[in-house]
C-alpha cells in the first residue's frame, strides 16, 4: 500500500511517514500543497494523508483539484476541529477526517479503514483459499497457523489479496509497494513472489505470462 503524506510541519510529517513505514506502507512525503498535488496526480496512491493549513496551496484546494481528475482516497488532517470544518472536508470529497492532535494508532487504523473501504472490503479479515489475512493485526495465517512474514512480504500479500481474481501487473505492484526512495530493481519483486510462494504454497500466486500475477479467490 502506498501512501502520500502532505504536511507542512516537518516534525509531524516525518513522524507520520515513519510510523506508516513501520506499518509496512510505502510512504511518499510532500511539504506543501503544490508538490503534494503534483505527486497525487502523477502516482496512484492508495491513500493521501492531507493537511489543510499549508503554504502555497491549502488542503481544500489540493482536494478540489485532485477530485477533478482522481478518486484517490483522502484523509484530511488538520488543527481545525469544528464540526463545520469536518462537514466541509467530507463534503469536499474527503474520505475521512482527523483533528490534531491525534493518536498515531488512530491515524493508522483510519488509514487502513479508508483503504479497506475503498477496495470494497469492509472486513479486516479475508480468507483466500487456505490463506487468511487480518489487516488489523497484520497477520497471515495458513490453516489457522500464523506464518511469519516481513513487512514487505505482508504488504505484497495484502495487495494481492485485495486485488484477488484480478491480474496485477508488475508495474502496479511496483507503484504500490515501493516508495519514491526505493531503488526500483526489477528482481526485488521476483524475490518477494518467490518468498510468498514458499510460505503459502505454489498456487497462492499464479503467474500470467506477459501480463502479471493473480491470486485466485474462492
Amino acid at each position, binding site marked *: 500500500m502506498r501512501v502520500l503524506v502532505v504536511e507542512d510541519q516537518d516534525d509531524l510529517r516525518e513522524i507520520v511517514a515513519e510510523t506508516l513505514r513501520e506499518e509496512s506502507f510505502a510512504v511518499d512525503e510532500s511539504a506543501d500543497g503544490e508538490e503534494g498535488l503534483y505527486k497525487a496526480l502523477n502516482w496512484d496512491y492508495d491513500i493521501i494523508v492531507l493537511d489543510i493549513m499549508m503554504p502555497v496551496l491549502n488542503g481544500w484546494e489540493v482536494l478540489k483539484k485532485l477530485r477533478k481528475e482522481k478518486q484517490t482516497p483522502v484523509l484530511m488532517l488538520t488543527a481545525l476541529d469544528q464540526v463545520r470544518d469536518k462537514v466541509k472536508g467530507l463534503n469536499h470529497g474527503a474520505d475521512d477526517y482527523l*483533528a490534531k492532535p491525534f493518536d498515531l494508532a488512530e491515524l493508522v487504523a483510519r488509514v487502513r479503514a479508508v483503504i479497506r473501504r475503498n477496495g470494497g472490503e469492509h472486513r479486516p479479515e479475508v480468507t483466500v483459499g487456505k490463506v487468511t489475512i487480518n489487516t488489523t493485526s497484520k497477520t497471515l495465517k495458513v490453516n489457522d497457523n500464523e506464518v511469519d512474514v516481513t513487512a514487505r512480504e505482508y504488504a505484497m500479500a495484502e495487495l494481492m489479496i485485495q486485488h484477488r481474481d484480478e491480474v496485477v501487473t508488475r508495474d502496479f505492484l511496483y507503484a504500490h509497494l515501493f516508495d519514491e526512495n526505493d531503488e526500483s530493481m526489477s528482481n526485488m519483486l521476483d524475490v518477494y513472489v518467490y518468498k510468498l510462494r514458499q510460505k503459502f504454497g505454489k498456487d497462492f500466486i499464479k503467474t500470467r505470462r506477459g501480463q502479471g500475477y493473480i491470486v485466485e479467490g474462492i
Partner: protein
Amino acid sequence: MNFFPQSIRWRIQLWHTLLLVVIIAALLAAFFQNQREIKYQALDRELNNPITRLLPRMERRRKPPPRTRRLPRPEPLDGFDDEFGPDPESGPRPRRGSDVEDGRGPTLDEVVEDLAGDDIFVIQWDRDGGLRFASENAPEDLTPIPDEIPRGGERMSKRTVAGYREVIHTTPGGSFLLVGTAIAPIEKDLASLQMRLVGIGTLIVGGGFLVGWLLIGRSLKPIGVMSETAHRISDGDLSGRIEIKEDGSELGQLSSVLNETFEKLETSFEHQVRFTADASHEMRTPIAVILAKSQFALSRERSPEKYQEALQTCMDSAQHMRMLTDALLELAKVDSGEFNLDKESGDLEDLTRKVVRMIEPLADEKKIVIRCELAPVKMKFDTQKMRQSLLNLLSNAVKYNCEEGEIEVVLKNVEGEVKLSIRDTGPGMNEGMREHIFERFYRADKVRTRTGKTGTGLGLAITKAIVEAHGGRIEARSEVGVGSIFEISFREQD
C-alpha cells in the same frame, strides 16, 4: 404577592383607564345632577304657579266678605284677573268669562279644583293643622306639615316626600297651602337619562381603553422589538439589529445606541472567536508533534539515537509552546489593560546598538550585513519592552531577509519626532500582506515557514502594542522583490 401587573403596557393601560373612568364618571355625574336640578326647578316653578295665582284669592277670602262688598274695589278683582288671565299654559278657562261677567269671580274651591289637574294636587290646612281642603287626586297618606315650618309670615318651602314633590306656602294668615305632584315621571325620565349616561360613559371608557391600548401598544412596540433582538443576541445570534423607524424619538435614539453596542459586541466577539481559534490552532501543532513523536518512540523498542531524537523533537515543540503561551499572556495583558510600562529616561541610541549587537550572530549565519545610522535620542521608555520590540523587528529583518542581504537601521530625531526605521532586503510583501501584517497570528511568510524555526505569529502584534503603549506609531512599507521597511515614530516627550 404582587397583584399589580408587571407589564408596562398593562400598568399604563390601567392608570389610563382608571383616570378615564374617574373623569368621565365625574363629568357625567355632574351633568346628571345638573339635569336633575333643572328638572326639579321646572317642576317647582310649575307647582309655584298655582300658588302665586291662589294666594291673592286666599287673601281675599281671608278678609271678611261684607267688607269686600261694602267697599267694592274693582282693582283687586282686576289684579286677580290679571293673575289668572294671561296664562297661556293653563289653557282656556271656561268659567273665566262668566266670572268676569257676573263680577263675582270664581270661588277658591273652583280655582283649586281648576288648578288641581291630573298631576297636580292641592291641599290646604288651617294654621292649626286642620285639613281644610284636599283635591281629589291628593294622595291618601298625607304627610303632615312638619313642625319646623314656621307658622305665620309669608314663606315658601319645598320638600320631596314619599314620592311626591311638594311646595308648601305659608300664607300671612297662617294657613298652609300645599301644591304637590308625583315625582315618578321625573324620576323615570332621570332614570332613563342615567341609563343613557351610564351607557355613554361605558362607551367612552371602552373606546378610550381600546384607543389607549392601541396607542400604548404602538409606542411600546420598539421596546418589544428591542427586547426580542436582545433576546436573540443573548441566545447567541450576534448579527441581530433593532430596526429603527423613528430616529427622533427617545426609543429611536436608544435603539441606535443599542445597535452600536451590538455592533461593537459582535466585532469584539468575532475577534475573540478568531483569536481563540487561531491560538488553539497554533497550540495544536506542537501538541500533535509531542503526542505523535512520543507515541512513535514508545510504540516499540528503539535505538538510543531514536529516543534522543524523539526527546529533542518534544523539547523543541514544548519550547515553541512556551514562546506561544508567553506571547499569548502578553497579549492578554494588552487586551485587559494590564499592560503597564515601567518608563525611565534612557538612551534609545544605546538600546538600539545593544539590540543590533545581539542580533549580529544571527545575521552572520546568513551573511547579512547590518548598517547603522544612529543619532543620539534621549527619551522615556520601558527598556525591557522596548528591547523586546526592537529585537522582534530586527530578528524579523534577519529571518525574512535573503542570504547575503543587508539591513539598515536608522534612528533620527527630526523636528521633535523620533523615527526609527529598519529596512531589509527580503522578498517584500504585497499590499494584501502589508495590511494584515500587524494582526495576530497573521503570517506573510507562509511560503517560508519551513526555512528555520517558525515564530509565534504574534511578534508584530506585540511590537505594535508596545509601541502604541509608548504613544508611538508603527508602519510597514514594502515593495515586492525589493524589501520592507518597518518604521516606528514617537513624538518627542518633555
